[in-house]
């Protein structure tokens, strides 16, 4: 009986897997160092400056995209404004060989990972389902069905282990996605396989309109890790330094062969779910303004200025860089969409089937007829 029920070769005390009761924080809401660092250590000045720069650029990209959606140039845009620290901190914490598995709300993270703005927005403009080459940036296509990407991340990470490659996968998910069965399966597989994967739950308090209290009875989402034998961190998700340090710690654990890490980052979605949503139907404006005062960019900016790492001149240069990015995004997204109907049949199988060849010919013939001048 003893061997039958011996679950792990090395016994792991449940306590050691649990997150702290209060979220870890490296820079507090007023931009002061300290807070509640726990096991995390403050990144170096270059990293902090880059976190700030990428957040400013990401925020401008995000607000421009929201505007383009309202103007009808994008089919839809799910904003990540307010979650800037999670988006940028997570993406920058990855190494070149690591993989990012984003959701539809993670366009800022995709951009920060190096995907050009135009390729990032291909999905949301509606030209194709994914505009970038996943292998070029090691970014999986943005995932719309909730939590399904977590399993892909575990599989990719475990394959890296089977092939003895030093490679970590980062799965992004939200609080709502933690209720999906795939999240459970992904955490369980990752724990059993000791897969080199990091799960970052951006807990923004709402799954579209449904608040966290209707999503779970768990004390925290991070606390769920213990059920899978996965160590977990609860962090301040509006502290870019903490997000960066926590994801980095997860990457280091994974690289050392110690398996997965679950991180819950407490944050807030400032905008509605998408431009098609009306957030005033489910949350009070006072709640939003409360979170506006905990802005992740303002916090890091205050810290950098206090530390002599940012001044008016460098802030102005950065603002100008952000405007150039926005202008570039506007120009590219306002250009006419070049789509090719023949391409519809191209990528269904490695080679189009005979039936698809026939359907392509039918569509092209139909289009050719439309183009012919009326008799």
């Amino acid at each position, binding site marked *: 009986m003893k061997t039958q029920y011996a679950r792990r070769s090395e016994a792991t005390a449940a306590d050691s897997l649990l997150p702290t009761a209060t979220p870890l924080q490296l820079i507090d809401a007023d931009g002061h160092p300290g807070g509640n660092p726990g096991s995390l250590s403050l990144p170096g000045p270059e990293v902090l400056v880059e976190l700030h720069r990428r957040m400013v650029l990401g925020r401008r990209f995000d607000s421009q995209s929201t505007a383009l959606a309202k103007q009808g140039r994008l089919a839809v845009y799910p904003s990540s404004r307010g979650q800037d620290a999670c988006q940028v901190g997570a993406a920058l914490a990855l190494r070149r060989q690591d993989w990012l598995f984003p959701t539809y709300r993670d366009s800022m993270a995709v951009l920060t990972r190096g995907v050009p703005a135009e390729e990032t927005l291909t999905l949301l403009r509606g030209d*194709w*389902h*994914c505009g970038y*080459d*996943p*292998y070029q940036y090691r970014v*999986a*296509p943005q995932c719309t*069905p909730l939590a*399904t990407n*977590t*399993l*892909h*991340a*575990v*599989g*990719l*990470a*475990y*394959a*890296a282990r*089977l*092939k003895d*490659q030093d*490679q970590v*996968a980062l799965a992004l998910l939200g609080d709502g996605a933690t209720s999906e*069965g*795939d999240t459970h*399966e*992904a955490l*369980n*597989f990752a724990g*059993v396989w000791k897969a080199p994967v990091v799960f970052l739950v951006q807990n923004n308090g709402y799954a579209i309109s449904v608040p966290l209290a209707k999503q779970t009875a768990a004390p925290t989402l991070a606390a769920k890790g213990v059920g899978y034998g996965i160590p977990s961190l609860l962090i301040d998700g509006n502290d870019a330094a903490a997000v960066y340090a926590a994801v980095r710690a997860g990457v280091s654990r994974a690289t050392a062969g110690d398996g997965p890490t679950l991180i819950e980052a407490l944050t807030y979605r400032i905008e509605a779910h998408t431009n098609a949503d009306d957030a005033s139907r489910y949350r009070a404006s006072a709640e939003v303004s409360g979170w506006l005062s905990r802005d992740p960019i303002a916090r890091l900016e205050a810290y950098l200025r206090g530390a002599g790492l940012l001044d008016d001149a460098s802030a102005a240069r950065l603002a100008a860089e952000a405007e150039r990015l926005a202008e570039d995004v506007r120009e590219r997204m306002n250009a006419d969409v070049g789509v090719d109907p023949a*391409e519809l049949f*191209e*990528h*269904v*199988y*490695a080679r189009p*089937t*005979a*039936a698809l060849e026939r359907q392509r010919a039918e569509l092209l013939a139909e289009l050719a007829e439309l183009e012919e001048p009326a008799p």
Partner: protein
Amino acid sequence: MSRVVSSSTESAVSAVPAAAPVTMAAALNQALADSLAADERVVVFGEDVGTLGGVFRVTDGLAARFGERRVFDTPLAEAGIVGTAIGMAMNGLVPVVEMQFDAFAYPAFEQVTSHLAKLHNRTRGRLALPVVIRVPFGGGIGGVEHHSDSSEAYYTHTPGLRVVTPGTPGDAYVLLRQAIACPDPVVFLEPKRRYWSRETCVLDADGPAIDRAVVRRPGRDVTLIAYGGMVATALEAASAAVEEGWDVEVIDLRSLSPFDDETVAASVCRTGRAVVVHEAAGFGGYGAEVTARLTERCFHYLEAPILRVTGFDIPYPPPHLERFHLPNTDRILDAIARLQWEDGDRG
């Protein structure tokens, strides 16, 4: 199956191995072993596929031979199995996963339809997912509920998937080798009632292409179209039909998606009569698509409406009732009899 050699016998000095009786389960096992040996990217995983060798023993001995990095048990979670297979394929592996039974594959449906079938398309061809999902399917083994579903139409209705099913042990070997070598995701349906059927053959990777149907029995009067577990039933019916004076051609579809219009339509245009046979419920079933395609292509050659012999439109029955549900030779012969024969039509 004609000669040639599986990779496990390639090193053997003797040129041509002798044909021997082999079960479909053993043929599938050999195909997995030969694929694992031939391509180090191939990994086999699922529930009970490791130490136990699978509940049908199709993976018997593979974990011991190839080790736990190539052949391994997973937690009991079908979405997890397919979802992680997708991630592994993204990272250069060729996963061959097992769903333990047809109806137990349903938890993986979202991963199959929204991701496995679509990622190549979603990424404009940049991602390829050479994943094979093996699914024991169909009834006829006295299984209690949820162990006998014919789930093929769920998969064939999903563009981006290939869906194949072998009808004979020799072809099980060929098709599985082809499925594993295929760059597209393949749902590989194994007719579990035929796991223990035997064929005397040499297991040989050469054979008709993965997307081709084959004529298992040539005939002049009527075309029987079957796949998976119903191929043997159709062949029995064809033999019995000789006494009635009908010369029946039997087509084994092999590939349900894509469908081999050319081979099947050529046969039906020649015979002028056709019956489609499957275990699954008829309504909205795979036979409806076959019938529609043949009507579009062969209408002016047809002597009678194309008929279907299928399971009833009911949930799969309990073991003591399944014999009333499953198509059999009598029902097939009855259908053939209803194809508007006139004197002089036969032979």
